[in-house]
């Protein structure tokens, strides 16, 4: 088991290294774009928690699928994808990567929220919501990319979804985002639902992943 974990982490490290400059996009968003946008605030006002709620949900979940989709690209468009399939160590090879990358991304986001906590106090309900939304975005990208055998369209869908539902269509039942105060446990009802939907999407993607191994070449 430990050997399998070591193998997975080694490959994940090299896959991320292969992304070169693209690798730095999510850290830039997390550690520069989001905090600076929150600090800048609307003209002449102090940073506010509502600004933090909006900007965190707008940027953090939409970039969660960045690394996973670039990893999936090698499986869809690399000339050597056959090799990746022939020597797979398990039938959930991609699913385990998606979960690992989600964990890594949420860990980095937690660092940003420690900073937000120093500014606004209790931000952990918002953090839980953003973590669930990030999982949803990764699950959506994973299942769509396996369904379409493409990573570009899922990336576009990802950003379009975040922009439309965060900035324009707030009341839709399809919206995973919440505009609120995130002050009590009641504000976690929607994120819990989003996490459940994300798990369903991951399972749907896993079914497509199993099919990929035998029928898609």
């Amino acid at each position: 088991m430990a050997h399998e974990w070591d193998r997975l982490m080694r490959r994940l490290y090299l896959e991320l290294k292969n992304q070169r400059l693209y690798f730095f996009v999510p850290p830039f968003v997390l550690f520069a774009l989001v905090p600076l946008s929150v600090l800048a605030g609307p003209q002449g006002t102090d940073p506010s928690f509502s600004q933090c709620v909006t900007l965190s949900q707008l940027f953090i979940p939409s970039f969660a699928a960045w690394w996973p989709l670039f990893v999936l690209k090698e499986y869809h468009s690399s000339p050597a994808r056959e090799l990746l399939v022939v020597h797979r160590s398990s039938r959930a090879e991609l699913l385990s990567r998606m979960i690992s990358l989600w964990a890594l991304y949420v860990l980095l986001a937690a660092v940003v929220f420690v900073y937000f906590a120093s500014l606004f106090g209790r931000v952990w309900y918002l953090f839980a919501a953003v973590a669930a939304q990030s999982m949803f975005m990764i699950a959506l990208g994973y299942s769509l990319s396996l369904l379409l055998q493409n990573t570009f369209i899922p990336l576009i869908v990802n950003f379009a979804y975040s922009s439309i539902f965060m900035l324009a269509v707030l009341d839709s039942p399809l919206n995973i985002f919440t505009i609120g105060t995130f002050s009590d446990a009641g504000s976690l009802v929607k994120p819990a639902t989003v996490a459940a939907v994300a798990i369903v999407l991951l399972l749907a993607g896993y079914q497509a992943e199993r099919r990929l191994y035998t029928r898609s070449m």
Partner: protein
Amino acid sequence: MIAVRDLCKRFGRKEVLHSISLSMGNGCYGLLGANGAGKTTLIRCMAGLFEPQRGEVLYDNRPIHRLKGFQRDLGYLPQAFGMLPELTLYEMMDYMCSLKGIPRSQCAGEIAQALEFVNLEEWARERVRTLSGGMVRRAGIAQAVLGDPKVLLLDEPTAGLDPSERARFRNSVRELKRDRTVLLSTHIVEDVDACCDNVIVIHGGRILFSGPSDELREVAVRQAGHTGKKPTVEDGYLWLTNGIA
């Protein structure tokens, strides 16, 4: 060691392989056929990439889909190769070691040996995307031999290699075939003539000939009569396929 029994593969309504049966022990087998004959489909079935509609691939008399260890005993070079282009050649090989489940402690030695085998040791620190097409092909051969696999499935291994590298490859195959099964799919008959003891001729998804290469040469002699020229595998192959056409 590896066998194919009554294998049929269809894509939609098109049947690409028709009841293929083969058996291979240690040695080098040349899989010869024109473009579209079904070579790559057969190799992909043998590597476990395609599920056949009927029949099975057996390794040590057991179906490969039930054998977890088969992938570890398999070295595979796909027709197209070139992965993780932003990594160095060494890192790409390291990735392949990890993919094949080779213990970390053995990776450095395995990589050095494989790169030396294809004469790429000096390029280990170069990025994959900076390598020429022939070098990438050689890197593909190197990754296939990582971990000392017992079965090597090589799909068009010499495509894109210059004459000296092709000669080097032929010599390497002669060494490799001693204690393992090497299946070399190609339409370059000279490669088969130079290093394979056995030939499999596939045409339209059917096996036309399977046996020692000397036997195929004799077929050519029998058909053409004694001309004084030493018969080649190509003569036998051409006679077989032209007879069908």
